[in-house]
């Protein structure tokens, strides 16, 4: 009894202390890091190389930007990634970077350059541009002017809308008074109907991603290979911890074709199908909306580490990475009945399902109806899965009608079958064979025993 009381008392003490322990705060370390803005084939990704990692990864023959900073670095357990605390400490160094090919040549000097990058509106995504030096300032200024004009338009719109509202309610009150006094209101009704509501201004659409503020960085545009870099301060000394290896890699294959598969009932969760000649297995409960894209093949480890320097990957594997949508493509659809049909890309709207059931449905976009003031939420190819066909073959033709190699895919509808239990017969067959063999063996043994 005494032992039980002691145990309970100790447990209570432990519990008391455990609940008093404060939550873990990530430990921040001051480090010299290389912040990297690397082009990944479709846009720019931001990452950084800590002091205890020794390699920076970049794609070959493409401009990427590197800056050396001193900041706090901490590990965030929720995302299992390292982060920088730039708000607390964000110190850049004055100097230049020296670079040389690994094991060859002498160090060459790289000076920092003013730059900005932006994406220009076009039919499809990949229109990234880089502006350097004075061009960078001009581009940022151009965006500022556009944005200021837009803000002015918004102010004008608000003023006009206020006037419109005031006039509208004045006329409505006047009409009410006339009606109460028994006078004719048709004329004033015509005036109210002829009032035009001012149009709301839209954001400038020249840029899909406007130019970032002008920064200074070292621009790396290197052929494939391995390099060594180090940072030289203004006094000519090498900054401690700044020596790194740079792995510049190129794509193994280009212009492959992949598909983004969007199911009609879960448009927020598209799936990418990137492997050539692979099969898209679906349950057939809803139609599919697909978007073909070009893809390039990169080393899995190098690409993942370029995207996020503390990420991982398999150095022996190559992975297709999405680049941009195939422009003005057509999809050739063939089903089991040898029916061939060309699918065209069409715009669609995503509408919330009315009523108590939750979810969305994808409907064709019609500019003539109420949706006319909105843009289509989706431009894709509609692949119907209804009917008896269980295998559908698709392939992509480019805008000139030429089939794109590696774009062939099969869509197969997988359904649970009533005859699946027959597969168990196959599993039992070895036992049947065993009994037959044992029976034959026993029979032979008896025969030979009888002969003796």
């Amino acid at each position, binding site marked *: 009894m005494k032992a039980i009381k002691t145990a309970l008392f100790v447990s209570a003490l432990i519990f008391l202390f455990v609940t008093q322990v404060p939550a873990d705060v990530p430990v921040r370390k001051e480090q010299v890091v290389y912040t990297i803005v690397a082009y990944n084939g479709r846009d720019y990704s931001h990452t950084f190389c800590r002091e205890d990692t020794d390699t920076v990864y970049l794609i070959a023959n493409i401009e990427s930007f590197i800056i050396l900073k001193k900041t706090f670095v901490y590990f965030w357990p929720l995302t299992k990634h390292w982060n920088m605390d730039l708000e607390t400490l964000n110190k850049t160094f004055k100097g230049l970077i020296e670079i040389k090919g690994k094991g060859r040549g002498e160090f060459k000097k790289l000076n920092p350059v003013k730059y900005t990058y932006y994406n220009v509106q076009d039919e499809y995504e990949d229109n990234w541009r880089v502006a350097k030096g004075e061009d960078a300032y001009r581009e940022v200024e151009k965006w500022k002017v556009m944005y200021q004009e837009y803000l002015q338009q918004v102010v004008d719109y608000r003023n006009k809308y206020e006037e419109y509202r005031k006039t509208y309610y004045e006329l409505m009150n006047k009409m009410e008074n006339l009606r109460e006094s028994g006078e004719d209101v048709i004329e004033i009704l015509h005036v109210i109907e002829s009032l035009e509501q001012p149009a709301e201004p839209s954001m400038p659409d020249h840029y899909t991603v406007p130019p970032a503020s002008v920064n200074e960085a070292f621009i790396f545009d290197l052929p494939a290979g391995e390099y060594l870099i180090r940072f030289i301060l203004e006094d000519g000394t090498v900054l401690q911890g700044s020596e790194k290896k740079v792995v510049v890699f190129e794509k193994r294959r280009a212009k492959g074709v992949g598909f983004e*598969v*969007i*199911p*009609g*009932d*879960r448009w927020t*969760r*598209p*799936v990418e*199908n*990137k*492997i050539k*000649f*692979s*099969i*898209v*297995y*679906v*349950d057939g*409960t*809803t139609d*599919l909306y697909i978007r073909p894209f070009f893809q390039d093949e990169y080393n*899995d*480890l190098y690409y993942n580490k370029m995207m996020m320097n503390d990420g*991982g*990957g*398999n*150095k*022996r*594997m*190559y*992975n297709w990475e999405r680049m941009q949508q195939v422009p003005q493509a057509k999809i050739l659809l063939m089903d089991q009945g040898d029916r061939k049909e060309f699918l065209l890309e069409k715009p669609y709207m995503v509408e919330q399902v009315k009523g108590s059931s939750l979810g969305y449905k994808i409907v064709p976009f019609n500019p003539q109806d109420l949706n006319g003031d909105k843009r289509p939420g989706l431009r894709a190819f509609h692949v119907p899965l209804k009917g008896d066909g*269980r*295998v559908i073959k698709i392939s992509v033709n480019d805008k000139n009608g030429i089939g794109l190699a590696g774009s062939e895919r*099969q869509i*197969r*509808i*997988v*359904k*649970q*079958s009533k*005859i*699946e239990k*027959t*597969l*168990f017969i*196959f*599993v*039992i*067959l*070895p*036992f049947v*064979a*065993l009994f037959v*063999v*044992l029976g034959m*063996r026993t029979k032979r043994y008896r025969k030979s025993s009888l002969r003796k």
Partner: protein
Amino acid sequence: MNYRLNAVKTVSKRRIYETLLSPEFYLLQAAGLLLGYFLVKGFTLSIDSSGFNPELSSLYSRIAGTLSGIFGNAFVDKLFSEGPFIFSFLISFAPVSIYLAMSSVFRFGLEKNVGAIELLTYGPMDGTTYFLAFMVKDALLTVIYSSILTIFFLLAAAVYNLFLGPMYFVFILMFFFLTLSLYSYGIFASVLMDNPASSIILFSAIFIFFTLIQIGSFTITHGYIRNFQLCLNGLYSGYLPIFIGI
């Protein structure tokens, strides 16, 4: 040459006959087919409106999670790009291939221990003929079981509307050569040791070592472990048949 072929044919027929009479062979085949059934069925239960989603099935969520953690998502995507059959074949074939290899190792060691090999090599056979007979037996039974598995998967593909494609058949061809190297290392282990138990232990150690190294060469590793692994790769890549085969 004729007498050698005749000796190989006679001994390998005897070995095949003995294997076909043993109950373990059929039990392991049934176990393999059952594993294959559950893996294929689990795959069909992991299909939703957008494609293969391992989270829908508890079996495949564990399989995909484990494989992704060890080899990366790119590996898992490629493994299941045509369907479940390559992975199912590997798992279904494992019990039978290990049994065939182990039974050859054990039998070789036993016959060596009792002096039967010496008796044979003074008579109608030589060492090469004896080794070849074991290899022929293992290779033929491998082909037979691979065919059974392929027929089973073809049926499953027809039932569930899955696709048994060229990747699967290329894989089977490569896997056949891989198993030949496995069996030859088994015979090598038997030659080195004096008794069957030691032969099995040595063969198991070789098999586990090579499998771990091969798996390790595909895994995601970081920092110093990756550098160490690269050195190991350089050392053994020239002469390991498993490495060359894959």
